[in-house]
């Protein structure tokens, strides 16, 4: 067991007063908001999450669970990995060498085979229907754990396309736990200080604002001003870390290692955001819904994922951050073993794989299996609810003891009939 990943004693008490006071307010009261040194979070070893979302559905057969030379196995070979007896697709040469760093769960069986319902259903952990909209995992972590000592927004999302504030992820937790999305890796609107305003002037006017606020808030209830202070300070902290979003300044070598493509560059930004101290970083890739020409498409898709994933794991490991960062790589489902008439694979929630690494995870374990044809799970099957239990435990949160508070209605944070997947946790 990793000594850094014992359940965090502070998690519960922090959560309690987050619940009592409203997250933003409480977050502001966490203190430590004054310009955190780089690596502050590293030093504190606060638990973080890197959530890699391959939207549309990555094929398990062309990645983590190959069935070469079988009816549905497709054209590719499998290759041996660092783990004796474990093979992955030949499209993942880099991850094959890092299999001892990750844990595969090859026995996922989930409930939904459509994107529109499947994506939110999976990211919300598919709990029992209680007539409420559950938060995405990122929002749940943001609410349960709050921001790290860095003060940076707790749930950020690096994605192609539009950015901004995405409140809907938060479900009943309310918009303040939504995601701050860096669309095309770019920061949100109004992120940069206008050129007309010098840094000195900005500092001075904010000092004055703080002084006014202090006078105002001192005899009153603290929460609102603390929340206001927190969001203003967060804006400033983000501004101080603006170099994260200026990829033109990144060393070319580093960019090449992650891959000169959207996923590679976004993964690199994601790593910088983790280093800067964001609690939960989601890195998103789109275009995995390969109903047509799947095998040709998969060559570049999986290869580029392999490159970016291996690079980020390598870096997180090198800095020691992997020890306190839970890494998850997944889609909303896998793809059908059956190959359709347009050389594609369709949606397949019946038997697919999720890859995990880092904090609390049993590195080098391969949990569960599919049958020889790769069509169905052989032995115990796991749903996304099991996965949520496992993730929360890895982060030191006990889903059997901790609940959401939905305006007085207590709600379980993970499916109440499910539990941890045996063997996944260190």
């Amino acid at each position: 067991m990793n000594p850094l990943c014992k359940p965090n004693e502070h998690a519960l008490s922090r959560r309690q007063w987050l619940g009592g006071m409203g997250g933003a307010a409480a977050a502001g009261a966490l203190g430590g908001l004054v310009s955190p040194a780089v690596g502050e979070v590293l030093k504190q070893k606060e638990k973080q999450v890197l959530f890699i979302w391959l939207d549309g559905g990555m094929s398990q057969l062309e990645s983590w669970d190959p069935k070469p030379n079988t009816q549905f196995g497709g054209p590719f070979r499998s290759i041996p990995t660092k783990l004796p007896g474990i093979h992955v697709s030949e499209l993942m040469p880099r991850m094959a060498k890092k299999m001892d760093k990750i844990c595969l769960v090859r026995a996922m069986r989930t409930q939904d085979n459509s994107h529109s319902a499947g994506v939110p259903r999976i990211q919300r952990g598919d709990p029992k229907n209680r007539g409420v909209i559950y938060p995405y995992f990122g929002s749940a972590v943001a609410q349960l754990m709050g921001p790290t000592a860095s003060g940076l927004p707790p749930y950020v999302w690096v994605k192609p396309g539009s950015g901004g504030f995405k409140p809907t992820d938060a479900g009943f937790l309310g918009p303040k736990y939504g995601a701050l999305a860096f669309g095309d890796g770019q920061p949100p609107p109004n992120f940069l200080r206008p050129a007309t305003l010098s840094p000195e002037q900005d500092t001075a006017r904010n000092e004055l604002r703080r002084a006014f606020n202090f006078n105002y808030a001192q005899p009153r209830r603290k929460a609102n001003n603390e929340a206001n202070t927190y969001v203003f300070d967060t804006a400033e902290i983000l501004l101080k870390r603006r170099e994260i979003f200026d990829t033109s300044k990144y060393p070319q070598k580093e960019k090449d290692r992650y891959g000169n493509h959207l996923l590679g560059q976004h993964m690199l930004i994601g790593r910088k955001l983790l280093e800067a101290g964001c609690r939960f970083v989601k890195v998103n890739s789109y275009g995995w819904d390969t109903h047509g020409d799947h095998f040709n498409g998969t060559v570049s898709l999986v290869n580029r994922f392999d490159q970016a994933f291996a690079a980020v794991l390598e870096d997180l490991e090198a800095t020691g951050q992997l020890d306190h960062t839970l890494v998850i790589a997944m889609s909303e489902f896998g793809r059908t073993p059956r190959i359709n008439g347009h050389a594609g694979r369709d949606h397949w929630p019946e038997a697919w794989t999720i890859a995990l690494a880092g904090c609390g995870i049993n590195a080098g374990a391969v949990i569960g299996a599919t049958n020889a044809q790769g069509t169905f799970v052989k032995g115990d099957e796991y749903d996304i609810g099991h996965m949520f239990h496992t993730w929360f435990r890895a982060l030191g949160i006990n889903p059997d003891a901790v609940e959401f508070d939905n305006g007085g209605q207590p709600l379980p944070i993970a499916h109440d009939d499910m539990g941890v997947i045996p063997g996944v946790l260190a």
Partner: protein
Amino acid sequence: MRPIIFICALLPVLAGWAAESLSQRIDKLIAAKAGRQPLAEPASDSEFLRRVYLDFTGQIPTAEGARKFLANPSADKRAKLIDQLFADARWAETMADRFHVLLMERRGEEEEWRKWLVASFKANKPWDAMAREMLAPEGTDAAKAGAWFFITKRLEKYGQNPTDHPGLTRDVGRMFMGVDLQCAQCHRHLTVKDYKQLDFQGLYAAYSNLRLQNPNDTIKVKWAMESLLKKEMEFGSVFSETKKTTGPRVPFGVPITIPEFKKGEEWAVKPDKKKGVSGRLKFSPLREIATRMATPENPYFARNIANRAWFLMMGRGLIEPLDLTHTKNPPSHPELLDLLAKELVAHKFDLKWLFRELARTQTYQRSSVLPKGGAPEHLFASAKERPIAAEPLLRSVLLATGERDRVTKLDEEDAHSLKSFGDLFQGAFANAPREPELAVTPTLKAALFLRNNEALLWLVQRREGNLVDRLIKLKEPAKIANEAFLTLLARNPSDAERAMVKSFLQKQPTLQNAVGDLVWALLSSTEFFVNH
């Protein structure tokens, strides 16, 4: 039925309360419950002035108005101001704004809806009548057609979701009875014993029966066609196999029997899509629900609006959350809520009267400065800071910065037009669709907007006749401080604040920038951002 209720309402009169106004009785009940808890001081004139202006005119007072009010020595100036503001044309507009946000929860805007809200408050239409017009809209009456928006906006599809009839049903329960029955849609409510699946399904039988229609010759707004309901709706719990049925039914009420008609005789006016005739059912579940729900006989109805009015004035409901009324979640002040509901019924759901009574209370007029040792929120021992919605915030910012007239005259496409600012403020300060705006919630997007948005910063640049210009011309730091505070915060600065301003202005390289930054710092302050 109404006379009986009226007599009930008169009972306290017999008990010797005749001489006391509702506002006085409210304060007594609040004080009684507070017991030994010390109460906050009365709000200062500035606090009071800013509060009533925001609440009843939808913007902060002008510097001139503040100056006059603060200088006015008369003892009854607060009562007079309340009367003056309640007579102001802006009162109806402001109520329309507030009820729009409350009822529509940022789903969007519509001109006819807004007209209907303003007209209703202007005419002081009783709340039960307003509610009936929303619950069972009469599309053919142009004066009432705007009320369709409550239903039709909720029938619009968004994203990839199917038409949200359950959501509409839920909101009818929430907004008009203070009960959120959503969790009882598929089975009995797991945490609220009072809410049965039947309570949701009875309402759903009426509101799931609607199909969204486009405007036509007779109905100038989007409207919904009510289909013929021939038999009771079947439903079953996901927990059990047994099936039950229900006709339309107000939650916790008696089922309404569905009458039988001979085939072809169900319609008083037959619908004709080609001619744009919406038709009129002889038996309309919507009308049945509306007449049974929005009446004094339905105790939930009066209590809900009393609680919501209290919430709008005090920042916290007597029942919290506002839509979880049930026996295990009693009001913080049960007698008070009973009193408000009964009096409202006795006054025929006259909201203007109720809001005026609430405005007159000491409870409303208390300071947000806490008494020594603090005060728990639910005792209403001090005023609670409330959010200022995006629209009144924009009006206040434009008024204070002295840019309102300029901005109003600009073309819509201009980056500094009223429309551009409207969009920017909505984007920065309004919640996402379907998210209620109930409490002060500073957000990162708002902070980024205030800190860095170029249009916002444009407002604090010197321009002929604007606030910054006016302040610069005053030259002396003390005068600048006085005028800035009065304009933005409706109060005079303290000595300490004057000293802060002075030292700030002196340290900055140019007075022009420094004054702009001073205005910005006040504009971005917590004090400006909340209704305290």
